[in-house]
């Protein structure tokens, strides 16, 4: 019987990883499309917007079935609970990437602020790296790595604050930029939210490995509107 459980769990972990890698790719595509004003790519992402939620539901159904039929406890219980919760965070990250794609479609050819685009590409690079690392920490039960990844959310927050300031200054210099700037606001905000979900993922790794439920907020966390 436990053979079945371990087997199912392995499949579930694989599916979770695949979903994670796909979500990570979506972040890349979405921000790239945004910066390049590539509405076609953005549109094709939106056309496939059901993929991540469908995958998420599928993983959750399987996890719930494991809970009900195998009634795992202790370590096994934590593994299944954390996959349930982590899947939801991954799904949220996917939604955020999708919103970036939608913003790309919405935005008109406006004057641009290269410095902000630089920050967006920087934030994208960082969250994607963090996401891959947190997925690795997840499969390797690496609590230390999870905490380390979570602590790097401070860098994301810092970039976000920096971008906001640049955007506001840019509008003051040239009010005609206000429309384009609203998109910059939206996208940097979404990237910042992705960072927060990665921190949640980190806390599920901690729960999975130790049984401790902690909120892994970083000390430099900037509360934003």
């Amino acid at each position: 019987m436990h053979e079945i459980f371990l087997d199912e769990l392995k499949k579930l972990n694989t599916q979770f990883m695949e979903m994670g890698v796909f979500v990570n790719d979506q972040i890349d595509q979405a921000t790239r499309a945004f910066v390049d004003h590539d509405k076609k790519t953005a549109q094709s992402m939106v056309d496939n917007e059901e993929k991540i939620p469908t995958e998420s539901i599928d993983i959750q159904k399987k996890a719930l079935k494991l809970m009900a039929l195998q009634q795992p406890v202790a370590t096994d219980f934590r593994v299944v609970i954390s996959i349930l919760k982590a899947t939801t965070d991954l799904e949220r990250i996917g939604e955020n990437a999708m919103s970036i794609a939608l913003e790309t479609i919405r935005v008109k050819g406006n004057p641009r602020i290269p410095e902000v685009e630089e920050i967006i590409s920087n934030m994208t690079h960082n969250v994607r790296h963090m996401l891959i690392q947190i997925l690795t920490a997840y499969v390797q039960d690496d609590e230390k790595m999870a905490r380390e990844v979570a602590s790097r959310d401070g860098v994301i927050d810092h970039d976000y604050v920096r971008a906001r300031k640049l955007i506001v200054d840019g509008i003051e210099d040239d009010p005609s930029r206000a429309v384009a700037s609203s998109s910059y606001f939206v996208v940097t905000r979404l990237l910042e939210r992705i960072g927060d979900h990665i921190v949640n993922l980190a806390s599920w790794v901690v729960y999975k490995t130790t049984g401790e439920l902690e909120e892994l907020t970083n000390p430099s966390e900037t509360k934003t509107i």
Partner: protein
Amino acid sequence: MTTIISAKDVHLSYGNYEALHGVNLNFQEKELTALIGPSGCGKSTFLRCLNRMNDDIENIKITGEIKFEGQNIYSSKMDLVKLRKEVGMVFQQPTPFPFSVYDNVAYGLKIAGVKDKDLIDQRVEESLKQAAIWKETKDNLKRNAQAFSGGQQQRICIARALAVRPKVVLLDEPTSALDPISSSEIEETLMELKHQYTFIMVTHNLQQAGRISDQTAFLMNGDLIEAGPTEEMFIAPEKQITSDYLNGRFG
């Protein structure tokens, strides 16, 4: 929380075979402790040490210390009758005596020399109520206890154990011979009574341990592997082997 029974470095051998290799475990008053572990790991052996039910076995050797309310129960000064009155026992197979429900429940009181008929009547009723079997028996107190269903017989046995007002009740797989409905009724009864009594229960039903116990102790091959609050044991035990056992990886 008050410790009511404490076991320190308990070793027990049947002849040359050592079945317990130094068990240390405390039991808190008015808590339900579940003793779990694979068959033959020594759960019953340990449980029976707690009211000296093992005493009569040939070639048995017990060392270490077991205290009940601070008193060493293996000391020569211990009054065995009093110990068994305060630390009662319920077995796996319902074991009502082949006489009436009333006489079954009154049995312990009569042994203890209680003669007051009113007191006995009152205790019989109270105990049957506590064991949640009063409704089914109140009009049949003269009926042979063995004529009841398995689940009902087990409740009558619980009532019999409670009649002498013990402080601790030891239960050795009290529901393993019962159907799921009777088992869950017994579980409910124990849940209600645990505010009044201390229960120490051997069970091989891990979900049952999770549902009703406050403390869980995991034994394996005569060793206490790990013990702690049930919630911790079922969510984050210290040892991987505990998790493996709880998840049915062996046993």
